[in-house]
């Protein structure tokens, strides 16, 4: 008889250091329960606007079902370039400086792989989206977290960066407006980061997928800062702005040399982003602004509702200026984030995500997504109130 195989022995060593996403565990818990009100969702609760869906259906009807260029439809890249020129006065050549990817997730992955040599360090500004650290590890790099603080509106400071920069530091990943805090960084604070980037000759990977969801003030595109265009790999997509998460369309804008390297990986691993979804993205950019603004205004109202509500419950909540997350500090209740989130789920059936999932800087916090109906936000706030009251007894 042949010897039995142990498949686990074949799993690559570097993957064993990557813990599974903490979000995944919560997802498993929730899926076993009924009547859960979820503030745990990192995607819009709007259905993709009909004109976008209609454009996709029509395109399938027309038989537009083949591969596109590896880079993506030129028309889409031209429209993206145009929107960046108009919105942020930063110009990208659509042919050599942009790449359409399968969601921002792919853009992030290949951006890191395009610039990281084994052992290179990448600074991750935290609390941060859950994919950054694993993507760096998958690429053979070393993630170096840097924690921002609520007292500083979750903005990263030059000093905090300086503290962790070494000879091996290659790049910094930032994400403003931020998931999970909703923090934004204004132009002046970004300028001070830009100085550090130049001084230490680093690249910035700027994930600006929430740029359109900025409520107070205007978003500053990192590449629009003086001298930063060549040092920035700008990532964005259509998931959040146009409620198109399932379409999986993102893009990267960067210098031709960077886009070429990303393209090298993309053409062999992904070939091209989904054709139908690219058609939807073109429609979204050409005709989607009004519906997008309508969604943004509704998020803005829910933002006031949930932040005001959480603060009234005594859960200190930083005022988010972008994205669709409130990030209350719950440590005053005496519970850890995980215990709070698990207790809230099992006792009151409200799903949230414990802040730890987003890095050490998230310890003591809770991520509450307000991409939920007003009615659900009200009910969730009532239930959170009951949960907090129950803790005092």
């Amino acid at each position: 008889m042949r010897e039995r195989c142990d498949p686990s022995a074949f799993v690559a060593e570097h993957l064993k250091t990557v813990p599974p996403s903490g979000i995944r565990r919560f997802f498993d818990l929730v899926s076993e329960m009924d009547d859960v009100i979820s503030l745990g969702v990192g995607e819009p609760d709007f259905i993709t606007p009909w004109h976008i869906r209609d454009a996709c259906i029509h395109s399938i009807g027309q038989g537009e079902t083949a591969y596109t260029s590896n880079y993506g439809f030129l028309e889409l890249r031209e429209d993206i370039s145009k929107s960046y020129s108009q919105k942020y006065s930063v110009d990208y050549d659509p042919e050599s400086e942009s790449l359409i990817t399968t969601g921002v997730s792919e853009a992030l992955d290949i951006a890191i792989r395009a610039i990281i040599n084994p052992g290179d360090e990448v600074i991750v500004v935290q609390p941060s989206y859950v994919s950054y650290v694993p993507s760096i590890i998958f690429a053979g790099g070393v993630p170096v977290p840097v924690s921002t603080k609520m007292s500083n509106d979750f903005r990263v400071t030059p000093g905090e960066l300086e503290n962790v920069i070494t000879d091996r530091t290659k790049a910094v990943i930032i994400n403003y407006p931020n998931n999970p805090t909703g923090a934004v960084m204004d132009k002046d604070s970004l300028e001070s980061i830009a100085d550090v980037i130049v001084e230490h000759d680093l690249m910035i990977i700027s994930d600006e997928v929430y740029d359109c969801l900025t409520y107070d003030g205007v978003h500053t595109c990192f590449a629009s800062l003086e001298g930063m265009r060549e040092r920035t790999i700008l990532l964005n997509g259509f998931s959040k702005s146009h409620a198109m998460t399932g379409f999986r369309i993102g893009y990267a804008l960067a210098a031709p040399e960077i886009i070429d390297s990303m393209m090298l990986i993309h053409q062999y691993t992904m070939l091209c982003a989904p054709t139908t979804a690219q058609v939807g993205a073109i429609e979204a950019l050409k005709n989607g602004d009004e519906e997008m603004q309508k969604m943004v205004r509704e998020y803005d109202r829910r933002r006031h509702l949930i932040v005001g509500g959480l603060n009234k419950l005594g859960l200190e909540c930083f005022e988010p200026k972008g994205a669709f997350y409130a990030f209350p500090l719950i440590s005053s209740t005496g519970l850890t984030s995980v215990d709070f989130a698990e207790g809230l789920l099992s006792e009151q059936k409200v799903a949230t995500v414990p802040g730890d999932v987003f890095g050490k800087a998230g310890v003591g916090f809770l991520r509450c997504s307000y991409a939920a109906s007003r009615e659900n936000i009200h009910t969730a706030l009532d239930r959170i109130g009951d949960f907090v009251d129950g803790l005092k007894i």
Partner: protein
Amino acid sequence: MDKQVQHILEILEDNAKVTPKEIANLTGMTIDNVTKSIEQFEKSGIIRKYKTIIDWELAGEEFVHAIIELKVTLERKLGYQAIAECLYKFPQVRSVRLLSGGHDLSLTIRGRSMKEVAFFVAGKIATLDQVQGTTTHFVLKTYKEDGVILYETEHIKRLQISP
């Protein structure tokens, strides 16, 4: 448009029953300021009226709706306004619109039966001096009214937790 003004109007256009307190929660304004703004909108006519969309069929009432297209001759000096006035004074006439294209005016009529509506059009509308001709379209089914879908609503299917 002022951001707060736009918020208040959008909230009320979607649901006139939202209270000033809730609007304050949604906008970060004080209840007092919300109340004052609404009073001002009512006074200035920006807010014309609060009304309710009722599914009369479900309530067991039979109403017949018709869209009437009119071709009219303009009177010297008076123009369309004078004709519109003659039309909108009838309570059966629910809306009066001036149109571009093949016809001049479009009316929405509500009555108890097709016969009642037909006689109303023949007796009261077609007989007006300025009216050259009428075309009556009876409404068979209303799928969407004032932005509200009456028969089917879409529900988003999402995971309960996602990054």
